[in-house]
């Protein structure tokens, strides 16, 4: 029979959960649940860093410009397509 899994940081403690990102075994002290998913401290810090890190200014400009263009063209195409279909009846 295999021995019970142990915490990666505290070898004397039994594993309580597994980090979803790095698959490390975690004891109750090391395991943190964030939005329903278990993480170890280092993976949680990395994930938080990703969220907190600001997106490049150019990316914001690009997303806003593309969205506005899509919406503007959407309104125009909506009219053109509808007029075309209506002309058939």
């Amino acid at each position, binding site marked *: 029979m295999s021995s019970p899994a142990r915490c990666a940081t505290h070898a004397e403690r039994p594993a309580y959960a597994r980090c979803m990102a790095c698959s490390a075994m975690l004891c109750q002290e090391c395991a943190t649940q964030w939005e329903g998913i278990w993480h170890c401290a280092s993976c949680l810090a990395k994930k938080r860093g990703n969220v907190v890190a600001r*997106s490049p200014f150019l990316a*914001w400009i690009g997303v806003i410009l593309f969205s506005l263009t899509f*919406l503007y063209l959407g309104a125009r195409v909506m*009219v053109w397509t509808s007029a075309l*279909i209506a002309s058939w009846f």
Partner: protein
Amino acid sequence: MTAAPWAALLIATSIPYRFLQAIFLDELFEVGENAAHYGHLLGGTANLTVASILIAFFGRAVYARVCRLSIARGHAPGREGWRVPGAALASYILTGSAAVLGGFLSTLTLLGPVVAVMFAGLAIGTMELNERVSVIAPFRIILRHSRRLAIPFALVLVFFIAILVVFANLAFTFGLGVWLASAIGGFDAPKWNALFTTDNRRYMLMLLAGALVIIEPFWIAAHVIYVRKAGAQESGDDLRAWFEELRRAS
């Protein structure tokens, strides 16, 4: 369904968009084959319709977040539901706008609108996977979740049938309402009966708009669950969640 109270917000933000769509179609039927000569009128309504979709996008984003948090925690979140990350919202506005444009561009192909609806569903489902703002990344994430097309296609089919069922039920409810109200003295039932008929184009368009508004919360919840399940299968998270449930039960 724990996210149910938040559906009211989604419905409130969707109503302007759906009913402006109904008004646009009503105007289109009104001008008929002369539509090409009424570009200014139709264009004005189309602009308003597309502008109102931004309000609908915000409502959808909040509702999708609430659905995801409810699934993870087992209860509806509080004020946290409002805090949609800026990157996720911007990504959804980008992909949602692309879905709108793609849908209209491909109207004549018949298959195109179905693909656009599938794309729009995956866009709201994958919204919160966008942790940073990017023009390309949101489309890549959608592409990754559309490898198994059978489920998104099945969802389109199921919800298309659901819209027809809701449409019929709404029509029946209005009929029943008039019948019950006719028992009240002073209520002009024949007048209302004449309005609530299949010959009344505006009534039919409003029923369709109402059916779409009613179906939307279920449509979004289904896609959030689909994306979460697909992610869980990739990461093994579902197995861990199952172990966790077993440990809690023991």
